[in-house]
């Protein structure tokens, strides 16, 4: 099938970008967005031009490396699905695709469709971890964790770190991302001694790097890991908890 594409090309972070038009005549319904770009790159390089730079790695939807904006939707038209798992067969009659990088001031373009998402790692780096030296952990069986709590913790821990929530948010907020980490770690007993400090470090980094949350809820419409909106509440809850307690836990 024939697919018409408009693709964002930008040589470097400081260069001015523009859309470029392409047509793929032999696209197939089972192709994923990434495979469509593979096909297109083969065509482009064959014509003597430079390949479109885009990121993807596992192509199973779990590494979080992929992520392009398709017709204004972060990741593409299928809700809650990463770009690498969006297949043309799910696009209905749509045969014109405008593909851009994930759009956020917090994610500067490196080249073409590749953006710099290191701001997300700076959130984790600030406080998204547990202070346990190798070999010092208590027996995992000695701490009983109820089934529901472990499952709920995993619901939040499932975040793949793709940044689509930020790109979808009118404010460019990363509350869903930061909140998922806070909720994940708040639900398991290890590291509760640092809970207040963690909340402070993460929320301060969120404020410094990203926009505020106005609970538009756009993030949960795109999140490929299905992180629930209650994650954004965890940001405020964990921060206030720390403030009112006035100590680490």
């Amino acid at each position, binding site marked *: 099938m024939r697919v018409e594409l408009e693709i964002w090309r930008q*040589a*470097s972070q400081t260069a001015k970008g523009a859309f470029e038009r392409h047509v793929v005549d032999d696209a*197939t319904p*089972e*192709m994923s967005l*990434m*495979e469509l770009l*593979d096909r297109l790159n*083969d065509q482009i*390089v064959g014509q*003597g*031009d*430079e*390949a479109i*730079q885009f990121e993807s*790695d*596992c*192509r*199973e*939807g*779990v*590494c*979080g*490396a992929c992520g392009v904006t398709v017709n204004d939707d972060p990741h593409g038209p299928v809700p809650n*699905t990463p770009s690498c*798992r969006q*297949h043309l067969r799910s696009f209905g009659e749509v045969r014109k695709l405008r593909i851009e990088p994930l759009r956020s001031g917090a994610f500067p373009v*490196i080249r073409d469709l590749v953006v*710099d*998402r*290191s701001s997300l*790692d700076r959130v*984790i*780096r*600030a406080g*998204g*971890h*547990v202070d*346990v030296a*190798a*070999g010092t*952990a*208590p027996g*995992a*069986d000695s701490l*009983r*964790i*109820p*089934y529901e*709590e*472990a*499952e709920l913790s*995993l619901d939040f*821990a*499932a975040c793949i*770190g793709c940044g689509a929530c930020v790109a979808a948010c009118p404010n460019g907020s990363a509350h869903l991302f930061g909140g998922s980490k806070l909720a*994940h770690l708040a639900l*398991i007993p*290890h*590291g509760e001694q640092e809970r207040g400090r963690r909340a402070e470090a993460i929320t301060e980094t969120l404020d410094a790097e990203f926009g505020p949350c106005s609970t538009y809820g756009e993030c949960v419409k795109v999140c490929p890991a299905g992180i629930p909106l209650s994650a954004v509440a965890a940001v405020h809850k964990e921060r206030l908890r720390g403030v009112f307690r006035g100590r680490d836990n």
Partner: protein
Amino acid sequence: MKLFRRKPQPKPAPPRRSRPGLDARVPEGDPLTAWERRQAEYRLVSPANRRKMTVIVVGTGLAGAGAAAALGELGYNVECFTFHDAPRRAHSVAAQGGINAARAKKVDGDSISRFVTDTVRGGDFRGREADVVRLATESVRVIDHMQAIGAPFAREYGGQLATRSFGGVQVSRTYYTRGQTGQQLQIAGAQALLRQVERGTVNLHTRTEMLDLIVADGRAQGIVTRDLVTGELRTWTGHAVVLATGGYGSVYFHSTLAMNSNATATWRAHRRGAHFASPSFVQFHPTALPVSSHWQSKTILMSESLRNDGRIWVPKRADDERAPGDIPEDERDYYLERRYPAYGNLTPRDIASRAARTEIEAGRGVGPLKNSVYLDFRDAIARLGRDVIASRYGNLFDMYADVTGEDPYEVPMRIAPGAHFTMGGLWSDYDQMTSMPGLFVGGEAGNNYHGANRLGANSLLSACVDGWFTLPLAVPNYLADHAGQPVLSPDAPEAKAALKDVRRRTERFLRGGKTRPATFHRRLGEILYRGCGVSRDERGLNLALKEVRELREEFWRDVHVAGTGDRLNQELEKAGRVADFLELAELMVQDALARTESCGAHFREEFVLPDGEAQRDDERWCSVSAWETTESGRHVLHEEPLEFELVPLQVRNYK
């Protein structure tokens, strides 16, 4: 495939062997206490000296992130590198099913020695028993540690850790977090690494790819990297180098690995003198998705845990065109249950893959290209209900539906063997040090545990154990010899020479030609699947050897890299990786050709028992093949003899 023994074949000329065998420095005496004794012997570095010592860690998967974080925690300066934009993206993230641990909490008969037996036997007696004992011993606290740093392992309703069963094992020792165990361990490991970055003990270099190893005074003392964004080539030096850069299954083009997984770091280290062990030992995962179209970029993995509840079958009649639901029970062949009644659908991966290949080659394959078999959940859904199946495998079923457009709750999944895990890798001794002093290896990049076939859920374990509990003890033992010595200057002649080599190579890629690197990669994959795949024979291997060499010549004549080297250029990255695959592939084929026996995943059609199972030759080949490649490209075989004290050599039997 022939199911009977062939007439004896003329023996090929014996490969060059060097005697006596390689010494892995395994502790003498009782194997069960060897690790404890070795730890007591390890020399230490005083805390004051640690901060004067630099360790380079390449890779941020489970092994790399663990080693970097643990060494940072101990007070060493760690320079850590990944070509990804974030440490969390390393391909450990994609492992699904679980992580084994011989915690033996349940009364199902598990124990350290049972783990060792399963792993050694599962690897068809081609792994190092002593290392497996260490793996089993450390498996106990790995679960504690990974849970504590953030992996929310599945729990029973009573709050204790839940376990499940995996292939090749009759106990329940696999810990998991739904179908995303690798992701949860990886995220926990990456955040522990970032904690050390925040504390200033680890310098993390993202989007930075290692392209060569710096060897000075016969020791690994640094690496050459390319900044993938600016194109800058530069040298880094340290007292020791740890490679935790994963496996090379992606050499087959279609594999379960990530698009960027590659062998460059280990291959370049090999070309600088580190032996490469058992390169032909490649695991084909029996539950990968079949290739069904030209532009399909990979064979996505479906977790082995599905075989707990799914039943594998093909129609009894070849070329049966009926829909699976229309094929009555007595016209289905549940061939694993029939051939291996004791283990049934949970036979080890090599056996399940080979059995599937046999059915497909006999014309009983299913799907539009007849290249797959059914994995059917009908009976499990009838027995347990849809909700239970959804809670166990929901994300896998969703992924399957996404990729194929079929609903696995209604129609059976279609699966096929796909290149997956590489048991081969850089050879290392008991202390995880390669044959190049100062160069250590962890995780899938190494070779020691899994022999000729890896059991499911043992790879997450080996990566975690290496990273958190072996390398942080073994690397300092080496560093103790060099305490007080300055780091090699990044401008030392050896460093400059390596940098020059990389620069020359990079410039060569940019010189022109007509064919994209990816095209060569695809063709290489076809050659290897055909000639050095699920089963091999001498004729096919010789042909593959010729084809690989021709393809490599054509590559250097005709490779085309669009663009320049001074900015992000994924075509250039790919060209370097494919160039190394083309060299590695030759060694894989050589290794498969040299090893005149069948063992585990290395199945030579000439060496088959009357019942169709692999025929090992313990007289000749009870050893690890560790290859050296000389400067001129000649391959020289060194052998490490293997001894088994706890698990006596025996024919594997899963019947």
